[in-house]
């Protein structure tokens, strides 16, 4: 599909297959293969391994986005809003984050902002119990904004360090549901000026190119400050985040590598790129 002077057709096809099967996508793959052609082939005409190394470096640079650490000092409580399409792992990830921050000695409050799906609050309740975080919930079918408001109010009166707000999964194409999310975002600001301080999109590593649309629409609606890539313990590579990082400048904060509380890691771009090529 793409020509190159330094690599023969078979070598290029091999790289192309790696990139595509990692869900990197046509647009990003074309950008990378052009980079190989223009930048790398010229300098390292006879060294395919050097080209692969250069390619990995290029991908790493696309993923290295300046990220400010979470500012617990100036924001008490720090409020994190967690969003994403259905089934990506939002609720489970919130449980893992609760474990991480309670282990660090922080007082954590979880807001059961999914008032729609069957047993959503019950699911988050179990995570609260497992991690020593406090749960604020409302009525099933109730107003999600009210739950988040109550959670932030409780956090303020109890001097808690962190509020993590769970929301119902929703497809980015459902205008009314995206509007609901924008309303929850505004309610956070009413409960505490500046909140939410972080808005994180949870993406499933098995998702293909649709992840780009998801990031685009959620970013447009809420201004995302981070992404979490889940289910990397499977065989999917999650390559779609490269194009998302490059296009929208949204950094990956954490990755999910399993279903237990401890299965959360800070995003390591070097490890991620290495895994793409294994």
């Amino acid at each position, binding site marked *: 599909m793409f020509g190159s002077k330094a690599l023969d057709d078979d070598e290029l096809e091999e790289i192309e297959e790696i990139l595509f099967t990692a869900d990197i996508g046509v647009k990003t793959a074309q950008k990378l293969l052009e980079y190989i052609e223009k930048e790398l082939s010229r300098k390292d005409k006879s060294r395919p391994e050097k080209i692969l190394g250069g390619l990995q470096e290029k991908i790493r640079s696309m993923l290295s986005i300046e990220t400010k650490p979470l500012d617990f000092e100036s924001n008490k409580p720090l409020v994190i809003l967690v969003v994403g399409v259905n089934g990506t792992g939002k609720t489970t990830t919130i*449980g893992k984050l609760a474990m991480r921050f309670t282990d660090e000695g922080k007082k954590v409050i979880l807001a059961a902002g999914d008032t729609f799906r069957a047993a959503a609050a019950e699911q988050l309740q*179990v995570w609260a119990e497992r991690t020593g975080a406090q749960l604020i919930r409302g009525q099933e079918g109730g107003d999600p904004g009210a739950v988040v408001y109550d959670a932030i109010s409780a956090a303020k009166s109890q001097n808690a360090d962190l509020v993590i707000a769970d929301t119902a999964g929703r*497809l980015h*194409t459902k205008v009314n549901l995206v509007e609901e999310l924008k309303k929850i975002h505004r309610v956070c600001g009413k409960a505490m000026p500046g909140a939410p301080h972080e808005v994180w999109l949870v993406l499933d590593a098995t*998702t293909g190119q649709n992840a780009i*649309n998801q990031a685009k629409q959620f970013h447009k609606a809420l201004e995302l400050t981070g992404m979490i890539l889940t289910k990397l313990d499977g065989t*999917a590579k999650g390559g779609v985040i490269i194009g998302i990082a490059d296009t929208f400048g949204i950094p990956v904060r954490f990755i999910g590598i399993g279903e237990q509380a401890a299965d959360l890691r800070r995003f390591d771009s070097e490890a991620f790129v290495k895994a793409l090529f294994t």
Partner: protein
Amino acid sequence: SLSDKLGLTFKRLKGHGKLSESNIKDALRDVRINLLEADVNYRVVKDFIASVKKRAMGKEVLASLTPGQQFIKIVNEELISLMGGKAGELDLAARPPVAVMLCGLQGSGKTTSVGKLAHMLKKMGRRPYLVPADVYRPAAIEQLTKLAGDLDVPVFPSTTGQDPVEICRQAMEKAEVQNNDVVLLDTAGRLHVDEDLMQELLNIKREIQPKQILLVADSMTGQDAVNVAERFDEDLGVDGVILTKTDGDARGGAALSIKAVTGKPILFVGTGERMDAMEAFHPDRMAGRILG
């Protein structure tokens, strides 16, 4: 859309009289890029392009007065035939109670789909029995129990302390006694590479002998769809597929990958979160969506 893109490709060739092999190669490249953008698996695309090329390089296109239209017609036909020609059906022809087991990756939509199947079966005059066999995910049993309540169908009283195989075994006995004719087994989400959990499905299969084993797959799955479908089919044997969350804007190339690699029919598509949001799968509609 692909036909627009191909229309442009062939428009450029119009003045040149007869179509050449390199013209066809350009058009094939457009189709290839289009399918990759639609999340069809890299190797499935390769095989598909090869089969289209065979027909496209023949008299059918090269000697045609409207080669562009002929080419698009071939792509469409090949895609629909790969998608499975006509729609498949759920096979419940067995002495009741008939068991249907749903399995798949985490978060693909199994529990919700069990509810939707129950709703569908109830409307058809059947008496479904729901079985929560997921003892791992927090509140999974509560989730299915709530759906059962909303649907007014009976549900087995599982607890997280039980073994999933034992839950299914006891549930089949209850269904027999209660005169429920279809038993829907909701299993925990699992990775196709998790040996213990894949063995658990085999144990349930051996004990229950479900009439249908349905793989529930998310329609926005990317290249990995092929790995997942292959492993579930090889290890367990899949009778049919439910493709969920098609109410989004994912192109759904995973559907083609799954069908190509397992040969098993896609029976239903999930079109929303409510219990009535499930329809029969239409291969031609899916083909059109994948082509864009």
